[in-house]
């Protein structure tokens, strides 16, 4: 039932607003609204009950194991939420004079510094509001850099075929042409192909390392050399930073720009779709181009750097500075972990992934890339099962839901057929991993003996399998109250 269907004309969720409507008759009649907006009219209890019950219809980290590959669904410490919501932060107007905003600004400055150290970059801007905006800033900086050197012909961005969709979409948004680089069967970038693609038109390469195939790009130094020799820059898509935190740093691998999805590696919640943060870090030569604002410190006083301070900046990405509430949560999380905790993240994320991969193999699954270390995630391909039993990765995914597990990422990366991209994260106990592997094994058995069970899944959730085609064809995007 929709909240609108609980509505009853004339009801009001008092006592949440001034009781009386003040006069607005001073406003010219033609600028005033004629009718009230058709919002639901419910009591506070009705709203609380409705949304509490809706919430129960979600899977989430707090209720289920959620091994969604490339998404790093690790535990979101509750303290990060509580402390980021202290009144001192919540009531801070974004344009508060810097002197009165020192508590907040000091956290931001420290966060920038910690991110620099963790990634080996020279400077960070916290302005990007999600990974995709981080990518945007990164690519825009690459553009600005080349232009600042008069190299206006560099209008091509190279992207491996395993890359996330945001990579090509971003490059195009920044006005570049995208060229795809193939991946070898062992998961590494095809360097020969790469070499054939670079040239004076090359602005840069966007790379995820470990890649979205769940393996570490072993030839990273060679790749960096190819790109740099061609005059291009190296962009690091930090979505998979969790795998290498404290073990190897993008800056040390030769990357010139990176974004870090703080809502992945640094555990800010995903909130059913966001908000996130795609903080962007750069090597020294790109510092002047960082998006605004950033925070600096002089004699223990913190202040925002703005366009006046940074005339070469690519500019602003939002009205203020990114998503401060998200940034605070990341800052708190990093202070929890400390330098020693960072390394542990990578170690246990990798341990969990490799353990599950070993278990998957033992239980008869086909790995997309065998005989390699998994990073923090790995891929099962169900192409054989699809062929033999006519069950799809989608069927496996839906059946997992019935067994109380969120499904892994399916059908990404695109180059692996019928794939499950599995990322357990470091915060999950062996118990959860084993339970999940048992469920997968059970489904494998069911696929053989009773594939209908998979096709008909899910059965135990609020709804059965939903008709996506109908959704796209008979568009119903808003409820209209009568």
């Amino acid at each position, binding site marked *: 039932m929709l909240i609108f269907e609980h509505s009853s004309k004339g009801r009001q969720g008092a006592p949440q607003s001034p009781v009386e409507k003040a006069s607005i008759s001073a406003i010219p009649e033609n600028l005033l609204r004629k009718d009230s907006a058709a919002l639901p*009219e419910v009591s506070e209890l009705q709203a609380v009950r409705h*949304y509490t019950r809706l919430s129960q219809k*979600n899977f989430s980290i707090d209720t289920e194991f*959620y091994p969604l590959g490339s998404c790093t669904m690790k535990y979101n410490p509750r303290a990060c939420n509580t402390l980021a919501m202290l009144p*001192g932060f919540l009531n801070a107007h974004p344009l508060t004079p810097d002197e009165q905003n020192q508590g907040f600004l000091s956290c931001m400055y420290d966060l920038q510094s910690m991110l620099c150290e963790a990634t080996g970059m020279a400077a960070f801007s916290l302005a990007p509001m999600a990974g995709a905006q981080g990518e945007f800033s990164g690519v825009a900086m690459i553009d600005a850099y080349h232009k600042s050197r008069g190299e206006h012909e560099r209008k091509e961005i190279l992207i491996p075929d395993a890359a996330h969709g945001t990579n090509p979409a971003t490059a195009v948004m920044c006005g570049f042409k995208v060229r795809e680089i193939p991946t070898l069967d062992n998961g590494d970038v095809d360097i020969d192909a790469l070499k054939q693609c670079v040239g004076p038109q090359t602005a840069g390469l966007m790379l995820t390392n470990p890649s979205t195939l769940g393996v570490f790009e072993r030839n990273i*130094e060679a790749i960096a050399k190819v790109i740099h020799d061609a005059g291009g820059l190296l962009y690091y898509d930090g979505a998979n930073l969790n795998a290498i935190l404290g*073990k190897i740093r993008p800056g040390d691998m030769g990357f010139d720009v990176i974004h870090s999805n703080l809502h992945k590696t640094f555990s800010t919640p995903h909130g059913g779709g966001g908000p996130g943060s795609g903080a962007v870090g750069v090597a020294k030569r790109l510092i002047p181009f960082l998006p605004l604002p950033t925070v600096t410190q002089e004699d223990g006083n913190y202040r925002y750097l703005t366009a006046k301070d940074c005339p070469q900046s690519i500019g602003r990405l939002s*009205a203020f500075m990114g998503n401060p509430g998200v940034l605070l949560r990341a800052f708190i999380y990093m202070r929890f972990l400390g330098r020693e905790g960072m390394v542990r993240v990578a170690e246990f994320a990798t341990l969990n992934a490799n353990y599950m991969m070993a278990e998957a193999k033992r239980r008869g699954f086909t790995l997309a890339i065998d005989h390699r270390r998994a990073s923090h995630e790995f891929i099962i391909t169900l192409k054989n099962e699809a062929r033999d039993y006519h069950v799809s990765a989608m069927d496996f995914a839906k059946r997992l839901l019935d067994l109380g597990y*969120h499904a892994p990422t399916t059908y990404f990366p695109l180059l692996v057929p019928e794939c499950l991209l599995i990322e357990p994260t470091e915060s999950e106990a062996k118990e959860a991993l084993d339970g999940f592997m048992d469920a997968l094994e059970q489904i494998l058995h069911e696929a053989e003996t009773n594939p209908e069970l998979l096709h008909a899944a899910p059965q135990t959730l609020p709804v059965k399998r*939903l008709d996506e085609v109908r959704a796209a064809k008979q568009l119903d995007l808003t409820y209209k109250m009568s």
Partner: protein
Amino acid sequence: MPFIPHTEQEITQMLATIGVDSMEDLFDEIPAHLRAPELKAIPKGMTEMEVSRLMHQRADKNTKALCFLGAGAYQHHIPAAVWEITTRGEFYSAYTPYQAEASQGTLQLTYEFQSMIAALTAMDVSNASMYDGASSLAEAILMSVRANRKSKSRKILIPTSVNPVYRKTAETIVKGQQIDLVEVPYDGSTGTVTLEQIKQQGEGDITAVVLQQPNFFGCLEAVDEITNWAHDNNILVIAVVNPLLITVLNPPGQWGVSGVDIACGDGQPLGAPMSAGGPYYGLLCCKQALVRQMPGRIVGRTVDLDGKEGFVLTLQAREQHIRRSKATSNICTNQGLVVTASTIHMAIMGAKGLENTAAACFANNNLLVEKLTAISGVKKAFSGTHFHETVLQLDVNAAQVLRALMAKGILGGFDLSEDYPELGTAIMVCTTEMRSEADIEAYATAMQEVLAAGVVSAEKVPATPEVV
């Protein structure tokens, strides 16, 4: 080990299953000479007790001044229920609802959100959010370029009475795509843009015109007139609105004869705390015909195998994960949790509650302006109706006045000197429903005292760096 559940025994078992001797072996594909040093610049880990104390100390350092500052972020009352429910683990710690059947909570809520926003704006459809109001304007502009097939110019008219940071953000985001943002000056006496000025800049092929209502100065634009003119000339209209205020102001879907084509704005006034600048969210609505040009996620209602109502992400072929380089935008993660809060906020407040809130903002601002302009040396900069923000002209340096007010516990408003040097020493004051009569009185008294004490005159004092 913080947030790591493994026992020694489990680690041993797991390494054995993998077939390695140590944790280090798992990283043997990483070239040894590239291995990271100890991260010395990161402090040692802390317990929650210590972190908690640290954060309380930092939060306490932030000011507790009475806020009369707006300029794009507003201190509104948010019912306690809103964030208590929003931060329930099931909303807080879920991912984007890719597995629809296991995400009906988020999906249905988002469908309700889209419905509410469409109702508020009187537009046909809404997406599931953009990052914030400023970036949403940028996406609206990109969308208008894709949508207006009759126009080839990629020229967008944008009055300078539109929020300056919105204009700057739009510039950053669209500049890679050869789009021309043409500024239209506002009228110095009314603080609004006139149709004449628009026409003057709008010669030839124009793709779209942007209109903010109320505009950055809190002044009310002649939206009907301009919308009609634009449509008559095959120009799309992009509205930038404050979603709270359109509960009493004419909503963009009803501007002029046929309503605007695209409406955007910042959702912050609908349930997001100021929080030093975010997270807020950008709202983005359009006419039905433009829906396939919309960036970002959209939720649709459909049925399951049994014909039961259910919700899914739809029109995904617009998005980067399907369409890659041909997507309408690169946006992936949006502002879902704030959307959750905002939906609950709208449900609890209802249209009536929001209208009363908006009206109280207006009434409070009138009262404040009346009291402040009664002080000699303070006068209104523009004629005409203002909503909950008003530009005041001072005789003396604005930054100095604001600093003196701050010393009295009053965050007195926005210094316009950097963005609008032509206004001289002007500040913009804002009131929401949160400012009581006593608060307003306190501001007036403080202003009186500050001006009486005599701040240094405008010429002599260099403006302090401003955060814009």
